[in-house]
């Protein structure tokens, strides 16, 4: 009983899972490639981090050691390492200012990671999550760190620093007011972007010091391509009792892309003049370059262009480097003091310039020998016409006014052909004009020839055909046995010349006599003697006739097989004798 109670205690205290305990479990997950899942977990971790919730740190630590798709692995690790560094700083009571400033740079990797996850996910909701991360969570995290930097560098009573709170613009002056007490001395004021010192001003004052720093122009900042707010660090260096101190402040400046417009017709014909109008509504004068982009490459149209608030129109002949089809005009303006570098594109379709010709043919052609006429009319200029039938060049001709090209469809009585006519301008001024059609051609001569040959063949085979059809119709019907027999007889008769044609005139005479007497002819399996014994003897009653027939049989055998052939006259006499005997009998 006691044991059982102990067991129950053990089993029942299978308590609520503590997240930290699971961390030690021997997990072996498959590398995660589900970007929707990864970005959701990242957002969760950042939300916890903003709330200073320990679960964010736990998620970051676990995810740091969780394998993901190899393409994401590096960014994944760096992003969660940055989150862990953030926790390390907020958990520490003695974090260094350098670590904090380093973290501010590290946090940017989270934006890159979120962008990568957004790209590899197909779900629409991911865009919203990525936006929340980059627009809200990440700036808030950075803001926390900046507050910490300010807080840690605060020297109450020793050094007081005042900088403008508003969002500044490029080129703006930044007044910095510094108050130091008697034990301290202000040394200098620095303006930093990331780790780069942009400006430095030395102080030569005792207690109330002031300096003016200036926000750098957009042209001096690298790596910023879209409108954004940039944070600069103002560092005040001072010494107090021989020890150097640094006080940090942050100022914001808004950098924007210029508002530039480009206007051009969406469609134009090759060789025409293209009017491109450019201007800017930013109230600035901007320098840039105008290019054309197409499948061949990117080529400058104007390597230096000035854009101001007055619309300026430039005309270009639409020829090389434009290509027939889709092109894009690309206007790139350089960074100015106030605005960032910027490019915009406008698409135009270049249509081919065809020669003024018309091509016509008949879709169905019935001619004596299969001719197909192709009518080509040129309104101006001289061109060459290339005619293809089923992809094969069959005719080539010069065309200056109205021309008829006759091509042959071939010897077949009926043809269906793909006709393609290409009109080329030898001067290159016009693009190729292509005419395509499917033509049905009837060649009367070959058609008649085929009909004639067919009729002859039909006549020649008529008898065979009859027999064939007859045998087909009767072969499977029991009731028509008679017809079958008749067919067999007809067939036998038909084949008689082949089966009985018989190398012996005497034998032919014998067969004729037998036919006259109404005696059946020998089968193919009977010898003449067997036939005589079985049939002739029993049918012919008159002995003289029988004897005469016997003699004919013997003569026929000699004629067939012996080297000493009998005279035909002998057989004819016997034949005459039999005929007279028959006549006498009748």
């Amino acid at each position, binding site marked *: 009983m006691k044991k059982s109670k102990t067991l129950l205690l053990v089993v029942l205290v299978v308590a609520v*899972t503590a997240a930290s305990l*699971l961390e030690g479990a021997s997990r072996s997950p498959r590398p995660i490639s589900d970007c929707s*899942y990864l970005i959701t977990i990242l957002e969760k971790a950042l939300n916890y981090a903003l709330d200073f919730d320990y679960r964010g740190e736990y998620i970051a630590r676990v995810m740091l050691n969780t394998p993901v798709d190899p393409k994401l692995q590096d960014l994944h690790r760096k992003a969660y390492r940055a989150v862990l560094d953030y926790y390390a700083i907020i958990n520490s009571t003695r974090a260094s200012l350098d670590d904090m400033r380093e973290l501010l740079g590290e946090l940017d990797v989270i934006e890159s990671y979120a962008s990568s996850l957004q790209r590899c996910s197909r779900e629409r909701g991911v865009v919203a999550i990525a936006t929340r991360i980059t627009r809200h969570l990440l700036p808030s995290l950075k803001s926390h760190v900046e507050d910490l930097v300010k807080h840690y560098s605060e020297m109450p009573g020793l050094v007081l620093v005042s900088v403008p709170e508003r969002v500044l613009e490029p080129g703006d002056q930044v007044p910095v007011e510094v108050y130091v007490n008697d034990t301290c001395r202000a040394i200098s004021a620095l303006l930093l972007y990331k780790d780069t010192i942009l400006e430095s001003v030395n102080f030569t004052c005792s207690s109330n010091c002031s300096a003016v720093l200036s926000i750098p122009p957009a042209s001096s900042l690298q790596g910023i391509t879209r409108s954004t707010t940039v944070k600069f660090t103002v560092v005040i260096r001072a010494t107090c009792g021989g020890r150097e101190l640094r006080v940090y402040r942050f100022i914001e400046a808004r950098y924007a892309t210029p508002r530039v417009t480009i206007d051009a017709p969406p469609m134009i014909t090759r060789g025409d003049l293209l009017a491109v109008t450019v201007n800017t509504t930013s109230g600035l004068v901007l320098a840039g370059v105008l290019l054309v982009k197409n499948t061949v490459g990117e080529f400058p149209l104007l390597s230096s262009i000035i854009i101001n608030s007055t619309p300026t129109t430039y005309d270009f002949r639409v020829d090389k480097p434009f290509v027939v089809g889709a092109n894009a005009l690309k206007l790139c303006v350089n960074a100015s003091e106030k605005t960032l570098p910027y490019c915009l594109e406008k698409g135009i379709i270049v249509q081919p310039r065809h020669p003024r010709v018309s091509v016509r043919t008949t879709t169905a052609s019935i001619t004596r020998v299969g001719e197909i006429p192709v009518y080509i009319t040129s309104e101006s200029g001289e061109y060459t016409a290339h005619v293809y039938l089923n992809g094969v060049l069959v005719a080539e001709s010069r065309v200056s006014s109205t021309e008829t090209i006759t091509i042959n469809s071939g010897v077949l009585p009926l043809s269906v052909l793909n006709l393609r006519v290409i009109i080329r301008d030898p001067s290159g001024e016009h693009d190729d004009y292509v005419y395509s059609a499917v033509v049905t051609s009837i060649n009367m001569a070959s058609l008649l020839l085929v009909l004639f040959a067919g009729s002859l063949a039909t006549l020649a085979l008529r008898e065979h055909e009859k027999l064939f059809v007859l045998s087909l119709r009767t072969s499977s019907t029991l009731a028509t046995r008679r017809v079958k027999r008749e067919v067999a007889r007809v067939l036998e008769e038909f084949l008689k010349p082949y089966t009985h044609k018989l190398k012996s005139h005497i034998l032919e005479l014998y067969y004729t006599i037998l036919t006259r007497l109404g005696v059946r002819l020998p089968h193919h399996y009977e010898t003449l003697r067997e036939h005589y014994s079985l049939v002739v003897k029993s049918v012919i009653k008159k002995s003289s006739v029988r004897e005469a027939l016997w003699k004919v049989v013997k003569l026929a055998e000699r004629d067939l097989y012996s080297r000493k052939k009998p005279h035909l006259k002998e057989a004819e006499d016997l034949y005459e004798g039999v005929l007279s005997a028959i006549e006498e009998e009748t």
Partner: protein
Amino acid sequence: MLLRRRRSSLLAVYLVVLTALLAISLIVVLPVDYDYYALSTSEKGHRNLVEHGASWSTSPLRGVDANKTLLVVARRTPISSSELEELVDFTSRGGVVVAYGSREFTESLLRGLGLSVVYWGLVLDPVFSENSPRRVLVELSERNTSVTLNTPYVFNITGTPSRGELEHAAYTSIFSFVDGIVENGVYDIGEPIGEFPVIYTLRVNSGVLVVVCAQGVFTNSVLRENSEWLKLLASGGRSIVLDQSEFESNILAYFKLLVVTPRGVSPLLVLVLSVVIIVVLYYVYSRGGIE
């Protein structure tokens, strides 16, 4: 003439006996892959549990000492109210019961206990898992033991049980999510992420009923990972009994359970077959001798 008749009758008897033996051999030898079946070697079978020392029974609650038994109830089909009553009675007598299986089974079990149950969906964990997000790791905090659940699922459970006291015993990790919007095995934006309760315990008197919302716990595919927990549950000299009452209505499965033991073919079966064969042969030969 007489000799011929005797030979033909002998041949017929031999054929019948051979056919019967062949049929029985086939039933014994051929594998059966029903989910949760004691002799099944499939992912959701219990062959490994049997080899681990568990016995099975088609009527486990009769004549069993509840204080000395760990009963594993894993099923595909819902449990009836009478079966549930027996189970609760067994637990109240000091038994330890682990129940898992299909969603329908655990749902019927929890409903039978008087709870309101709504199914949410399968729980997947891409981070705390073993090779697949469906093999989810769950931590049992007391002994710092992790359990691997094969295809866990989650219910929204409200109310109080008619008997005993229900406790959430284990949750999935903070990285798990409910594959509920579209059950496609991947995360869809909007699906809930977080910890979800997947193991419940119900204390009834001195016994405990552990309900695991998962398709596999001591099944072949995850038994090795969960053997420590099994040992813990069976400590105190409890013998492991696998409930196979679900297969009582399945003639093939039931017959196989009767003729096969965890160590091979039942000696009782061999004895019965031997007796039958001897009787038949004796009968045939004695008849032959008379004629």
